């Protein structure tokens, strides 16, 4: 059984197509990442899957229930962790968890709160107003409050945006251990390559409301087609000479540098050494594909500057003005 099943999901805002008939499946206990730039449709996907907005067309089910027809059933089984921490700063951790627990209709919120507070090392600070917590603690409490009703799927929206390196790696470990110990399925969105790479079992690359590719980080990287060996050489040789070497896929010469695309650099580099005069090589560099290269290969754009989300942009401006 799948935790999330999405088929032909379409979401339009007027003429703007936010999700263009996307389909994917997420297995139970999987950490599934949706990777894409701002405005690609990641947040819209979460909104549809959590029952906040109805899709224009298509089908989606979460934890075995239809997100449109059985919204309440879905909501009882999911947790949502927003990118900014949403807690009542003037209330303490107990009070925040009480609200969340009771909103989820559970009776034993006290025992469950104690459980999650212990798990996240927050019990000794539980009576302190949340406004006095550090960013890391707030983030932890936010996750704790999403887990209080033991959901089977959690939606994590841009978990580490704007966080320092330590807090980020702390959160990555936390998400991994939650999945391992509680068996929850994690659906997360991110626009950080390294986050998707280190955290996710599988990734859907999304851009402009369409899924460009789905697969494990390794699978996606292999789609780009192997490693690159880059060499600076002194002596002349013909590219054809190198192309004959076993495992070499392509050879390009630019600015005196030879870029050799190979299936696996670890094996082929030795072969290349044999063919070329060893002393003629001035420098050698091996490049393994990253999700960055994958993204570029798939979309023809760099992740950083591929899209500007105008709606979000104007909303921020409006907020700044009226806030």
């Amino acid at each position, binding site marked *: 059984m799948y935790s999330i099943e999405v088929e032909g999901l379409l979401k339009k805002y007027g003429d703007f197509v936010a999700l263009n008939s996307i389909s994917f499946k997420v297995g139970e206990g999987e950490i599934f990442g949706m990777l894409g730039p701002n405005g690609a449709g990641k947040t819209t996907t979460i909104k549809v899957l959590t029952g906040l907005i109805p899709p224009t067309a298509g089908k989606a089910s979460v934890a075995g229930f239809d997100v449109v027809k059985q919204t309440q059933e879905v909501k009882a089984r999911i947790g*949502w962790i*927003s990118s900014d921490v*949403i807690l009542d700063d*003037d*209330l303490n951790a107990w009070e925040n968890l009480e609200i969340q627990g009771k*909103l*989820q*209709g559970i009776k034993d919120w006290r025992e469950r709160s104690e459980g999650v507070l212990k798990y996240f090392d927050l019990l000794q600070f539980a009576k302190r107003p949340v406004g006095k917590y550090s960013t890391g603690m707030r983030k932890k409490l936010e996750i704790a409050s999403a887990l209080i009703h033991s959901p089977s799927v959690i939606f994590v929206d841009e978990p580490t945006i704007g966080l320092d390196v330590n807090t980020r790696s702390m959160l990555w470990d936390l998400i991994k251990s939650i999945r391992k110990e509680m068996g929850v399925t994690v659906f997360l969105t991110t626009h950080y390559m390294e986050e998707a790479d280190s955290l996710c079992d599988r990734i859907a690359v999304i851009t402009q409301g369409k899924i460009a590719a789905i697969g494990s980080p390794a699978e996606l990287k292999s789609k780009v087609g192997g490693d690159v060996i880059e060499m600076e050489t002194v002596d002349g040789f013909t590219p054809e000479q190198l192309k004959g070497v076993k495992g070499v896929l392509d050879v390009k010469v630019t600015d005196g540098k030879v870029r050799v695309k190979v299936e696996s650099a670890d094996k082929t580099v030795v072969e290349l050494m044999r063919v070329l005069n060893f002393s003629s090589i001035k420098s050698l560099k091996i490049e393994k594909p990253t999700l960055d290269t994958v993204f570029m290969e798939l979309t023809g754009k760099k992740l950083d500057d591929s899209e500007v989300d105008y709606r979000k942009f104007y909303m921020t401006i409006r907020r700044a003005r009226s806030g």
Partner: protein
Amino acid sequence: MFQEFWVLYKRELKKTFRSIGVIIIMVIQPVMWIAFFGSSLTNVPSQFLTTFFHTNNYIAFLLPGELSVSMLFIGLFSSMSMIQDKRFGYLKKVLITRAPKWSIFLAKVGGATTRGLIQVPVMLLAGLAFGVSLPLSPLGWVEWIVGLILLGVGFSSLYLIVTMRSADWQLPNVTANLINLPLMFSSTALFPLSFYPTWMRYLSDVNPITYSAELGRGVILSGDPTIYYLGYLFIFAALMLGLGFVVARKYLTAE
């Protein structure tokens, strides 16, 4: 179902009562009304006052009116706090739980109404300080307080209905500017009906603030409140609340 409403209502109260500065200002504000506006007719001949206001102390006349007006103004709090919850994403968080939309709406109504009620004891004490005598009629007081609650429920529902779909900070304020003054001046909160031209009397006769103000005057001035005024306020509150439930169900959005 009730649990969700109750915990959200408790949240409203906690957020209000933990801010001591807000409470102090809320308490001072109506007292200033009594002090400044109430004193503006001090040197008017007492015969004029007894003829038109049925008391020689204008403050005794104003007190029930001003408390009713307070319950109108608290409507602003209900919709501002809803918009604040939208702005900070809190509403989204609540809407992703099983809590029904009506419980979110009702908690805001309850929070604002309770907030308005804090002013009642303060105003009564202020009234005493300004020489208003408060008669001892328990049933009358209960009726009046219930009337004020109904008025608060009605107006905070009305405000929420108007701003349900919006996340714009400005909307509650412009709504307040638009409806508060006409509603206040077209009721008998500040002046007796006999002052008004005929067309304004018609308005006053349908204005719920009039019924709440007169209910209070029944207690303070004659000791004999008219119970059917309470019925009118009940209908007003029930209508607004019912409409609010429907609108919340259909139109309450996370952003």
